[in-house]
């Protein structure tokens, strides 16, 4: 009997909170027009939570800023938020919530979740954005009409990484071809760049060898030792994430490998990696980014101003994990831009099909100058050009080392459109 009292208390408190959610719906700030709803699916309790926290903080602040400035032609933006802990069943539940709430577009987060959702999203005509997650061939907009990678895929990153290395090689006046080592996470996302790297090796004639890091990516001293001592690589490309980048930085440093010969893919070069490895240890480390880094762009000043007017301080993520924070702004910024374009052209009411057209009209992201690349999404290319910018860790800061660029676009696009005939 004691047990049932417990149960009653638990059930009652959950029911009470439920009731509060239903009654205490968010109050619009004096805007009278109907809101535009986005589904925001993210991870703050699972394996990718280290990214989830700053990305969502950035996206939230940018959304609030846009709403404060009057929303999209007067329509405020409303989020249907769903924290899913990187679990597929919970993520599908979130998608059904989005559908019931009539969102016009949503974030999909995580490679397995994208696989589970893209078909439903296509059937229901709700565009899904999948920036920085798997499935590079989703850039083919004619095949995946409602999937928008909208940021450099792993294939584009592979192209850009090789181009960067070849440029540096030439700039330093070296002859011959570099020896490139590829250190990757041994799972589908980690192995995705292979087709491009292998093709480029044939085309450019550099030496290439790869080393796998098994899950959970905490041990790689043997691999690094092999790369540095036996293979004697000239350049290293790393494609690892979560705690692994910091460990790789420390291992390379320990063996005396020059840090300015390492270039990381997009998930391995954030401030939290440098903090974990030590800023002085990581000095010289190159990292690829598909959104700007740092808090010195005009939009950051506007957000700081907004917080000042509210009498609050901006979240610490804005300055301390700006890589993630800025990506969040970019991810939601592209959705907002698509909604703006769709609203201008097709008018209210918006729906997923109109927004899909809106995404395909994107040519640069207004309001996020500097943070966003010159994104150009077309009905054929949903990746938007595959632009990246390479940053370097220098003096306790992550500073730009190149301009926005893309590498071997022809090779990447050939692979994207080749898969159409290749499988099935």
């Amino acid at each position, binding site marked *: 009997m004691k047990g049932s009292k417990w149960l009653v208390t638990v059930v009652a408190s959950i029911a009470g*909170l439920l009731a509060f959610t239903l009654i205490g719906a968010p109050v619009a700030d004096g805007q009278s027009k109907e809101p535009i709803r986005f589904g925001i699916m993210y991870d703050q309790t699972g394996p990718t939570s280290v990214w989830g926290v700053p990305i969502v903080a950035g996206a*939230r602040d940018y959304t609030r800023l846009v709403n404060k400035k009057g929303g999209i032609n007067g329509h405020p933006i409303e989020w249907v938020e769903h924290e899913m802990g990187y*679990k597929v069943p919970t993520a599908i539940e979130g998608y059904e919530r989005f559908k019931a709430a009539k969102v016009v577009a949503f974030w999909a987060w995580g490679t397995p979740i994208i*696989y589970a959702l893209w078909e439903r999203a296509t059937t229901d005509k709700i565009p899904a954005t999948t920036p920085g997650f798997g*499935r590079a061939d989703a850039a083919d907009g004619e095949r995946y009409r409602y999937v928008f990678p909208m940021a450099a895929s792993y294939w584009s990153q592979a192209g850009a990484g090789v181009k960067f290395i070849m440029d540096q090689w030439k700039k330093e006046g070296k002859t011959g071809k570099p020896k490139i080592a590829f250190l990757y996470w041994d799972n589908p996302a980690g192995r995705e760049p292979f087709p491009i790297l292998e093709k480029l090796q044939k085309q450019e004639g550099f030496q290439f060898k790869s080393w796998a890091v098994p899950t959970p990516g905490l041990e790689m001293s043997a691999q690094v030792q092999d790369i540095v001592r036996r293979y004697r690589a000239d350049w290293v490309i790393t494609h690892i994430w979560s705690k692994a980048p910091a460990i790789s930085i420390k291992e390379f440093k320990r063996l005396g490998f020059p840090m300015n010969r390492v270039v990381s893919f997009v998930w391995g070069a954030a401030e939290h990696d440098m903090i974990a490895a030590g800023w002085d240890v990581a000095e010289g480390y190159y990292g690829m980014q598909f959104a700007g880094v740092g808090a010195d762009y005009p939009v950051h000043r506007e957000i700081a101003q907004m917080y000042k007017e509210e009498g609050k301080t901006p979240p610490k993520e804005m300055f301390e994990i700006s890589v993630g924070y800025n990506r969040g702004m970019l991810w939601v910024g592209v959705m907002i831009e698509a909604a703006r374009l769709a609203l201008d052209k097709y008018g209210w009411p918006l729906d997923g099909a109109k927004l899909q057209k809106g995404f395909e009209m994107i040519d640069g992201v207004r309001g996020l100058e500097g943070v966003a690349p010159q994104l150009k999404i077309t009905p054929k290319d949903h990746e938007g050009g595959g632009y990246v910018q390479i940053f370097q860790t220098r003096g306790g800061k992550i500073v730009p080392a190149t301009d926005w660029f893309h590498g071997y676009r022809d090779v990447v696009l050939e692979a994207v459109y080749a898969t159409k005939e290749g499988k099935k």
Partner: protein
Amino acid sequence: MVNRECGVFFSTYAADMRLFPLPLTRWTMVGIAGLGFVVFPLVASDYFLNIANLVCIAAVGAIGLNLLVGYTGQISVGHGAFIAAGAYAGALVVTRAGLPFWIALPFGGLMAAVVGAFFGIPSLRIKGLYLAIATLAAQFIIEWLIIHIEWISGGAESTVTVPKAAIGPWVLDTLLEQYFLNLIVLSLAIVFAMNLVRSPIGRAFIAIRDRDVAAEVIGVNLFRYKLLAFAVSSFYAGVTGILYALYLGAANYEQFDIATSIDFLAMIIIGGLGSILGSVFGAFFITVLPMALRVAVDGAVTAALFLFPAANISHVVQSMTAVKLILFGGLIIVFLIVEPEGLNKLWRNIKDYFRVWPYSY
């Protein structure tokens, strides 16, 4: 209620051996089936249909694991891997050979059964925690094979896209149609498991669980029955895998990792070891609890922002989200303390109470 054995007499063996000997239980079952097959589909929205689908699929896997862990006493931490084996086998049969799903279902199940029986071989020599670690190896070996053998994984993404289940020209592509598919498979799984555990095979399983030496002495062939338990359990896992693949439209090993195995173990421990109904309760509990907690946490965030308008939204959301994991673990502990024998025991307590109601003796 008059759900008691008093005054029910049987005059034939067939009547004595029925799955539900009491008329009232039979009517209850008809009622539950009516709720599941008629009433719920009529009233449920897509949101709840989706949850029901997930619960049905998880319940099939949980019943399978319970046959192995709860009935035969062999601990397995490789259930996720067997689910993956079935998912890929079924997906490949559908995509490469172009066979319909109703062939893929038993085929994937059989494939998983073979794999499961193979990884069950160590159970002949080791028990308990040692066996758990041996089955853990299955998790890593199968994952590695799926990632590295391109013939299975179909390329670098290790994902096989599966078309929706179809019976002739009729494609089961709405949530409602898929719900019926999953519910029918779950019903078959429940009926088969209930019959299995009261058959000679099931009694052999239970004998092995209670004392394997004694079981061997009375003539139970340990080799045969332990492997059989692994095979049956993995068959269920394989069917779960294909149901997932058909439901999600893709077989992707990342969703069948070690965490999935732990989730299934949690389902049967919370539901009740050695209980078919408990497995279904457990699958429901573990699938729905995170969703209920999410609703509660969203409510708490709204409440906090309402009470403290000056707070920073991002920080409130972050801290409240962290509470979710603590609550999830905490609630599991609470349930296990309240009823160590699982939700099934709670249900039995309720039944026992009403059996003698309104007199408590």
